[in-house]
């Protein structure tokens, strides 16, 4: 029975998505979606608990009763259970928060379809974490991507259409690259199971097919991750889409892509092949650092708060791949911890910005002047989220940066520490820019009478803000579990 939970986690939102269309009453659908998200969150929480306390630390499930490597295997280890937990948690919070925001930002007759697309996106993202089959990863990646293109195109301004279209082109090229890579791997090994592939690839040496497959898969995933030269789709996609969508995607989509990158490089190609023979670590290190500096620098010059957050997201993605490029237990732990923390930080920030947008109908910094008094809770939340983004002690953001610094010091790479500190200073600049606008600029006349955001939005997002601090102090989840996950991956 317990094993069924692995597949139920993916199947529940999959069944719920078409049911939404049949139900078609917006209120009914909303209640139903909340129920579904709660169910998949509790399943993934239980799975993480079970996986991390069991002796083997993995659960395997043969779909349709066909045993691996011939059938499709669903397999969960600590890392995939952790990412699954993040995804379903963010989905739940975003949906709880979304009542007012969805009504305001999405046309009424499209709300049911919005929930359908949202659930399909959730299915895809959870599917990537659960599956142990390389081709299945591609299918779920496309399910989630297609749903997210549709979600992004629901934005209010017409620019969202172009953003969705550009994301569609980039995303499809990336996914097709991954498809080519998987095809070449299959042509040479005759298997699609990730772990079986890992064993077979390890026995091959100097095969050009494998090199080419590796290049295609890494580049394809880098597009999905939005690593530096491939990041162009991200800022517009995040800033033009409805608040709920940008919060959900910022918290989950790129993280799951990074998960896939870690899984493919370590489980299929093996650490030795990826990082010693082909030296992905050097490439990844350079690109990560460019990503961090570029994202932070460009964020400083943005005049739109959603754009600013989108560029800051790019910078944070750099930290996650930086941890991976150090290829040590500490580095991977820092990566996973940052995935965890950043999901909470960025989702809370995007949702808080959603509160501002609800009241002001604008996300331009110049329109938000002096809102600190009118909307005290929202503004305070943004400040705490901003501190966490910078990495000030006692916030969640500090924990992952601390481990990243430790991982760099472990390999005596002082200059990486310097880069991290410098990038944090840049983060101070752009966070200060927001604080200055909210608290120290004189309020516009129109902004004085603004009311605080409604409680239905504030409660879920304040919970996230609270977690920002909670995980800065109590680190058993974001440092403890991630360490176990990293050891499971690197150690084996």
């Amino acid at each position, binding site marked *: 029975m317990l*094993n069924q939970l692995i*597949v139920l986690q993916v*199947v529940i939102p999959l*069944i719920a*998505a*078409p049911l939404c*269309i*049949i139900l078609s009453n917006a209120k009914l659908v909303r209640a139903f979606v909340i129920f579904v998200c709660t169910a998949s969150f509790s399943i993934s929480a239980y799975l993480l608990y079970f996986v991390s306390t069991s002796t083997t630390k993995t659960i395997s499930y043969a779909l*349709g009763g066909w045993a691996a490597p011939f059938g499709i295997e669903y397999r969960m280890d600590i890392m995939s259970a952790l990412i699954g937990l993040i995804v379903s948690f963010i989905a739940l919070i975003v949906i709880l928060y979304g009542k007012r925001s969805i009504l305001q930002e999405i046309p009424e007759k499209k709300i049911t379809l919005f929930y359908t697309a949202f659930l399909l996106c959730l299915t895809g993202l959870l599917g990537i974490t659960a599956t142990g089959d390389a081709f299945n990863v591609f299918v779920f990646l496309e399910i989630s991507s297609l749903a997210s293109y549709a979600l992004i195109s629901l934005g209010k301004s017409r620019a969202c259409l172009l953003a969705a279209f550009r994301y569609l082109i980039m995303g499809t090229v990336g996914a097709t690259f991954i498809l080519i890579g998987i095809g070449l791997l299959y042509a040479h090994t005759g298997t699609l199971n990730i772990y079986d592939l890992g064993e077979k690839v390890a026995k091959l040496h100097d095969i050009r097919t494998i090199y080419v497959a590796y290049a295609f898969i890494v580049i394809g995933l880098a597009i999905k991750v939005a690593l530096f030269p491939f990041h162009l789709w991200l800022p517009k996609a995040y800033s033009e889409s409805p608040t709920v969508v940008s919060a959900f995607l910022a918290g989950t989509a790129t993280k799951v892509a990074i998960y896939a990158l870690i899984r493919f490089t370590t489980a299929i190609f093996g650490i030795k092949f990826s990082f010693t023979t082909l030296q992905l670590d050097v490439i990844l290190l350079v690109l990560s650092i460019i990503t961090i500096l570029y994202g932070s620098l460009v964020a400083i010059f943005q005049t739109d708060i959603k754009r600013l957050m989108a560029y800051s997201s790019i910078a944070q993605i750099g930290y996650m791949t930086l941890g991976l490029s150090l290829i040590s237990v500490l580095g991977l732990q820092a990566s996973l911890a940052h995935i965890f923390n950043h999901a909470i930080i960025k989702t809370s920030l995007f949702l808080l910005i959603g509160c501002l947008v609800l009241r002001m109908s604008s996300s331009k910094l110049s329109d938000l002047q002096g809102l600190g008094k009118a909307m005290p809770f929202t503004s305070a939340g943004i400040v705490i989220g901003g501190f966490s983004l910078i990495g000030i002690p006692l916030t969640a953001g500090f924990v992952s940066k601390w481990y990243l610094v430790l991982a760099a010091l472990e390999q005596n790479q002082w200059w990486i520490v310097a880069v991290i500190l410098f990038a944090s200073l840049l983060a101070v600049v752009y966070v200060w820019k927001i604080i200055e606008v909210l608290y120290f600029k004189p309020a516009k006349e129109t902004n004085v009478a603004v009311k605080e955001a409604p409680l239905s939005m504030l409660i879920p997002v304040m919970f996230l803000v609270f977690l920002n601090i909670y995980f800065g102090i109590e680190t058993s989840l974001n440092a403890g579990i991630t360490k176990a996950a990293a050891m499971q991956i690197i150690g084996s």
Partner: protein
Amino acid sequence: MKHHIILRIVSKILIPIIMLFALYVQFHGDFGPGGGFQAGVIFASALILHVLVFGLENTQKVIKSTTLQIFAALGVLIFAGVGVVTMLLGGEFLNYNYLAKSAVSGQHLGILIIELGVGITVASVILLIFYHFAGLKADD
């Protein structure tokens, strides 16, 4: 198209045959080449021919797009429903062996229902896409 009597008569004869062929491809899928995807597309193409010859309004009198949406959802539900039933019967998700007394007839039954779900979804989604694009006017 009112005056093209040959086109209208020929397609009136062809449409049922195309649909019949779609059903053949659908239900013969576990013995020979075929299956839900192909059958769904063939079935949709019969209705698309109807749209081309008799106009969108006439076809929409037969099947409305809201009905198609429900059918599209229904197909996915049939697919996933089989999976859930096998889980309730004690097997893994989509393990057809549990559907009937013997494993072989279970496999037959399972793939037949699954492909039916696929067929329904594909046919209605293809037709929905076509409705959407065919319904666009040049000026809007």
